[in-house]
């Protein structure tokens, strides 16, 4: 038996317990520290946004990268979501003889839930990872330090334009995803599945109200803000070398996705309560 394994076997239960507790403590402390760090980073971003606002040159570039370049992929995603919904829902509705109401199901789930969540997920992958990788590379190659050394605040220069672009453009992109989803679902249902178009639109009009469209947009504003802050933060905290940049890009997507799901649940509960208690609305039935 080697010295090391002998030592391991001599560890008392009390020592093992202390080790486990200390490991757990360290893990909790690290997560709390991460959350605190992200909160400070977010507050600093909001501070700079209010105090100075981003420069036009950086804002234009961010709007182009986040908005214009994401448009095709978001529209494609929306179109396919609409068509897949039609494919999946049609047989179920046909069984109960209500295939004419398929439009209501497709459009309501699109504008309220799937459009905002899937568009945000798509953008967390396309925009978020790219932000984290870009800022991470800047951290590794000391470009962020160079900004500071020249008396330029990196949060103001790099984060505020990206944050503002995500906050404004992700709801806009979600609207495009919704629109394309509606068109894709309609095309598939009417032209390929043979649903009568007048019923399709009439039931859709009944089921989808202005508040549903607003709810989708409202959620996507939070998704946009969360994606920008998480991904910029991951880029700023990037570890050394290519491995560090890779990890930052991956973790930015994973954390953004978790944040999107968590915010979705939280905002859904809030919006339902708001709709019922404040606006006195009644949830419309699809069937």
């Amino acid at each position, binding site marked *: 038996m080697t010295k090391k394994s002998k030592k391991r076997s001599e560890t008392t239960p009390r020592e093992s317990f202390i080790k486990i507790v200390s490991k757990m403590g360290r893990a909790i402390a690290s997560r709390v520290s991460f959350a605190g760090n992200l909160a400070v980073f977010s507050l600093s971003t909001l501070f700079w946004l209010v105090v100075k606002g981003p420069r036009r040159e950086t804002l234009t570039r961010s709007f182009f990268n986040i908005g214009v370049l994401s448009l095709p992929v978001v529209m494609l995603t929306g179109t396919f979501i609409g068509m897949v919904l039609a494919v999946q829902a049609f047989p179920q509705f046909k069984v109960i003889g209500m295939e004419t109401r398929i439009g209501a199901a497709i459009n309501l789930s699109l504008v309220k839930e799937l459009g905002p969540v899937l568009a945000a997920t798509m953008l967390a992958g396309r925009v978020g990872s790219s932000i984290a990788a870009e800022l991470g590379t800047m951290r590794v190659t*000391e470009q962020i330090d*160079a900004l500071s050394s020249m008396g330029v605040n990196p949060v103001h220069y790099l984060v505020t334009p990206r944050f503002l672009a995500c906050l404004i453009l992700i709801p806009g992109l979600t609207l495009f995803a919704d629109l394309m989803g509606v068109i894709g679902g309609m095309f598939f249902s009417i032209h390929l599945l043979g649903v009568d178009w007048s019923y399709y639109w009439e039931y859709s009009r009944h089921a989808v109200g202005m508040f549903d469209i607003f709810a989708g947009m409202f959620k996507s504003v939070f998704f946009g803000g969360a994606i920008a802050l998480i991904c910029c933060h991951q880029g700023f905290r990037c570890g050394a070398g290519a491995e560090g940049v890779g990890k930052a890009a991956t973790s930015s997507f994973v954390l953004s996705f978790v944040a999107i799901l968590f915010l979705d649940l939280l905002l859904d509960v809030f919006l339902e309560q708001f709709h019922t208690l404040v606006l006195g609305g009644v949830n419309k039935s699809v069937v």
Partner: protein
Amino acid sequence: MTEQKRDELRTDEAVPPSIEGSVFVGPDGVKKVLRRRPPLLEIESLNVIFGENQVLRDITLKIRRGETVAIIGESGCGKTVLLKTMIGLVAPTTGRVFFKGQDLSELSDKKLTEARSHYGFVFQMAALFDSMTIEENVSFPLRQHHKEMSKRAIKERVEYLLEEVGLNPRVVSAKTPSEISGGMRKRVGFARALAMDPEIMLYDEPTTGLDPIMSDVVNELMINARDRHHVAGVLVTHDMKSAVKVANRLIMLYPHALLDSDEPQMIFDGTADEIWRCSDKRVSQFIRGEAGERIRDMSMED
């Protein structure tokens, strides 16, 4: 009495504390006050700890106007951290860093930004912005801090700076950092650091990865910055030839602390010949680049 007149009488270390504040009337009939000017940069009992790792231990150091100080030491001994602490990029765990008498850790964001505009920092890998052209890189600090400057004035200044570092503005201006060589990138980084007319330049291994001729070009740029632009400099390097050629003083970090805390910055203060005769065994071993006992110890540990 204008502040400028008073400034004429400020001196670095020459004024003994006993006569500081003395008032006398100059030949022009104007009352003048003799004041002792603080060193350009002063580090006091600096400690930097990352997690459980003490990177710098009890560093005390002064950088005076017009001098270039080289900091040498083993890889990982904290030279770059020391350099970044001097500009406030790394916060001291304990201890203080003064720039022209102001404690950097006590400055507001706005004042720290203002203080940093008096620094120039040449990074190891130049740290040029990939998304910008060379012209945009060099003009970046001017565009950020001198909004009153016209586009034409900025362009002229950029051309002057590029010529100053031996680059042809017409050839390199429109290129991006990825389209030029490593040596050219270093020189562009140098031009960018000089753009704001700094009072102190911090050089982080500026000759690393360059061929001997290009290294000497960079050495000449550092000497030029000191002699022509009267800029103080702190040079972190492993290149002893560069250190000897450029620096007035040499400091060694060993391990994580200055080698001699009683007389911290006086390991070398003279001609190039003296450095090779340095009596401290650890310094001379490092300067000569001899493996010595360290390697034998490590092989025995294996």
